[in-house]
């Protein structure tokens, strides 16, 4: 994979070849119209039986007017989405170093297993005696999660990380209300300024007020500032560990003691659990709850943005507030508790989604855990951390690490090395695309200027890391030596050049509209505003 350097050198000397032919295609890079522009009225890609004549029972609400869906045959649909797929970068095609997002290999065994008819054809409301295997799988997955985190309970139903945060913060709110005799007066939730945006957003929808804790010079929670925030109005602290700078919060135990001393709870954002799984149990750090993004740590596919799954492990003090439903086992049969039964020792916060959780993700997670075993999981987190440090070590002479010392599973740089070059973090990222790479996470965490957060994960080979390092070094040198033009116009070899995001937001076009023609060119007048 030493492809890119020579290519881009030659492109500087010669104009970039663009096919000016009629089709818009450029070799394998196919243009593809919208589904709605490929419409042939009446066509369908599904052959369904003819419905005999019968009297409908729709009453007064039958839908008689045209819906406007396009008609295509199966080969046309296959070609359409195959062409679209080829416009995507993916973990299957290259390293995807998006820090904090954890793009690692998705084992295909897991895809096979989730499609077994005994799972895929299972209805959530079948009698539980016909779903014993599914309940057992949920219970086994839960048990692994409890052992790996050292926590006594887990709520399985949250649909994603942010949904898990909601579950945990609701449990904290319910526990505080109960302890304070109905309605707690504790309203403050402390969130580090480096936190994921979901943390403050979640605390806010649980009725809390957010106070920000600053970071210290080493990228970790400023413990002195944290102490000053302590008081009997503090409900909880939400801390990501390892944090979004890719660093382990070394004062974590003191933080946990401090928050517990004032009667608050410790919410841990487990987005980065993949860095420590099999090596550190969050339960030993004194946390009260933590969501686990199954799509990160246990590699269920991200699929262009979802679905996720966000089970939440809970301490003994929060366990009684776990949401409905949950699985129980009486040594013979598995059951589902779907309603509050009174009198009880449990005070569920309610129901979080329609059914029992992201079952398809549990199956993949369980297969991933069984495949790795405890040895493989520890090896995976070790390799993830080693890979990140290897990248950091190989780039730190040219680029500017945001903080000193070894990192965990991701390494963070600021844009100090670009100062005076006229090249921004955005330009640098876009130039990476021309080198054949998905950029790292840019401009996050917010506490670092022009942040570049690189997370290679454990599923990259050394060769892949070395190629990546060589390309980044080449780009860093180009920027520092003043080759600004290389960056400003990039990316050049992609299905689209830089896209105008301001324009998209100023007059949003969020759907195809048959009445007003869709603009194919830069023609303001033809652009509709819906």
């Amino acid at each position, binding site marked *: 994979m030493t492809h890119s350097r020579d290519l881009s050198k030659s492109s500087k000397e010669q104009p970039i070849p663009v096919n000016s032919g009629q089709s818009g295609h450029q070799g394998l890079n196919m243009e593809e119209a919208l589904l709605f522009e490929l419409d042939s009225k009446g066509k369908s890609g599904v052959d369904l039986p003819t419905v005999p004549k019968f009297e409908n029972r729709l*009453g007064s609400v039958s839908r008689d007017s045209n819906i406007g869906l396009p008609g295509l045959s199966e080969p046309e649909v296959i070609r359409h989405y195959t062409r679209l797929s080829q416009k995507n970068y993916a973990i299957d095609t290259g390293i995807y170093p998006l820090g904090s997002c954890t793009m690692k290999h998705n084992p295909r065994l897991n895809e096979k297993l989730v499609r077994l008819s005994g799972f895929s054809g299972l209805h959530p409301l079948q009698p539980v005696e*016909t779903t014993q295997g599914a309940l057992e799988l949920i219970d086994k997955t839960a048990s692994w999660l409890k052992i790996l985190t050292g926590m006594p309970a887990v709520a399985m139903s949250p649909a994603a990380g942010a949904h898990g945060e909601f579950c945990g913060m609701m449990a904290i709110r319910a526990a505080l209300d109960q302890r304070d005799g109905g309605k707690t007066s504790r309203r403050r939730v402390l969130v580090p300024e480096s936190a994921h945006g979901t943390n403050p957003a979640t605390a806010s929808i649980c009725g809390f007020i957010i106070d920000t804790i600053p970071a210290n010079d080493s990228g970790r929670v400023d413990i002195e500032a944290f102490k000053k925030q302590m008081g009997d109005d503090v409900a909880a602290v939400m801390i990501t560990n390892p944090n979004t700078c890719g660093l382990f919060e070394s004062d974590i135990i003191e933080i946990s003691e401090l928050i517990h001393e004032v009667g608050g709870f410790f919410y841990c954002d487990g987005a980065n659990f993949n860095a420590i799984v099999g090596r550190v149990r969050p339960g030993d750090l004194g946390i009260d709850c933590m969501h686990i993004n199954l799509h990160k740590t246990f590699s269920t596919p991200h699929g262009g943005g979802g679905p996720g799954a966000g089970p939440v492990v809970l301490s003994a003090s929060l366990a009684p507030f776990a949401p409905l439903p949950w699985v129980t086992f009486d040594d013979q049969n598995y059951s589902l508790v779907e309603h509050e039964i009174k009198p009880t020792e449990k005070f569920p916060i309610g129901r979080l989604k329609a059914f029992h959780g992201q079952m398809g993700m549990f199956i993949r997670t369980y297969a991933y855990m069984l495949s790795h075993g405890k040895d493989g999981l520890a090896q995976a987190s070790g390799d993830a951390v080693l890979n990140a440090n290897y990248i950091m070590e190989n780039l730190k002479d040219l680029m500017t690490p945001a903080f000193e010392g070894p990192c965990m599973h991701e390494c963070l740089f600021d844009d100090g090395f670009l100062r005076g070059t006229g090249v921004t973090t955005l330009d640098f990222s876009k130039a990476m695309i021309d080198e054949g790479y998905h950029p790292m996470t840019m401009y996050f965490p917010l506490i670092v200027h022009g942040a570049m957060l690189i997370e290679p994960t454990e599923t990259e080979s050394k060769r892949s890391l070395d190629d990546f390092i060589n390309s980044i070094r080449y780009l860093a040198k180009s920027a520092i030596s003043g080759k600004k033009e290389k960056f400003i116009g990039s990316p050049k070899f992609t299905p689209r050049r830089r896209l105008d995001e301001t324009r998209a937001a100023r007059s949003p076009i969020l759907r195809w509209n048959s009445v007003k023609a869709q603009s194919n060119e830069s023609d303001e007048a033809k652009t509709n505003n819906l």
Partner: protein
Amino acid sequence: MRYLPLTDNDRHEMLGKVGLSSVDSLFSDVPEIARLSSELELPDHKGEFEVEKIIESLAGKNVSTADVPSFLGAGAYRHHIPAAVDYLIQRGEFLTSYTPYQPEISQGTLQMLFEFQTQVSLITGMEVANASMYDGATSCSEAVLMARRITRRDKVILSGGLHPHYRAVTETHTKYLDIEIIDAPSDLNGLEDLSKLISQEVSCVVVQNPNFFGHLKDFSKLAKTCHANGVLLIAVVSEVISLGAVLSPGDMGADIVVAEGQSLGNPLSYGGPYVGLFATREKYLRQMPGRLCGQTLDETGRRGWVLTLSTREQHIRREKATSNICTNAGLCALAFCIHLALLGESGFRRLAELNHYRAVQIADYLNNINGVDVLTNCFFNEISIRLPGPADEVVSKLASRNILAGVPVSRLIPNENELNNILLVAATECTSEAEIEKLSKALKDII
């Protein structure tokens, strides 16, 4: 371990470069006391064949709706998924890509989301839709929160025909936000009239069509009453195939439409992952939760797509965001999109007709059984019937005869005695007349 590419030699060499002697020393920031001191009580790694056997044996302990006659519905439906759908969503470029934050190398996902938003807008009869939510129930709770942002009122009316789980999820999500929820009584007979509850203090009314008990209704008049009082009408659709046969909520005057999209492209999978649909009027666009994909131009003037209006979202607005949602249901939305693309206008309509036809057949068969009352006159693909005894017992008995007869209402609403004998029975295009006869005969046998 087959998923880990580093060799021991690689590790050794890389540690040398980093200047450390062992991988463990990379964890020096972790307080000593927090480092794992004893072995976890978990097994070591396993080969693919062994893992496959273990999980296959668990699957084997379940009764799949693919193998026995099934009449289960209540918010999740077994439909036939064309082979092309599952093939396409497993293309690595879709399956293993992330949220399209870098639009130049994510045009595939973005164009698909734009198509998805258009499809959702068309079938719901609305102007704009977002790029998907977790499921129908969480979409419903998000719609209630959005209505409050728009109306700045705190009272919410939930129809007695709303799916009980949607109601429960909405109650959970609004628990600590000073929202007053008015729960209408269960609408078993489909005769509910919510207009008398509407006042200028109400933020929104949430209705469902067909409702939880299967009744189809026209909400046009209710919409007018809502709008006269500055109240938003939120319409829930838990069986999205119905939109191929039933007047859209948009046509009835709804302001926000939320739906469960599972029926298109997504297997039952014991309840998830599914895909929540969320559509509204353009004027409420900036109060929407979730991601939006918008059309724009690139530097050379060619049409392309980007994520847009993200100033509503948590990664920009933090505690002032419209929602805390980050992950959507991308891959499930893709499955939905491809299935609907394959169906097209004519296929979607015929699929809906076929579903309805089978439900009409069921209603007619069951109506002829002594002791069974069909309670739904206007319905789509699901009906309520009253049995002479508790419905859960009937379902259990029929399950032992390998018939999944439907969903006893008491499974979702356990404390209303008058609902104990009510069974929800659903049909889809997968239901055959032979299966309906089988159900009907078995029911006759046991009651």
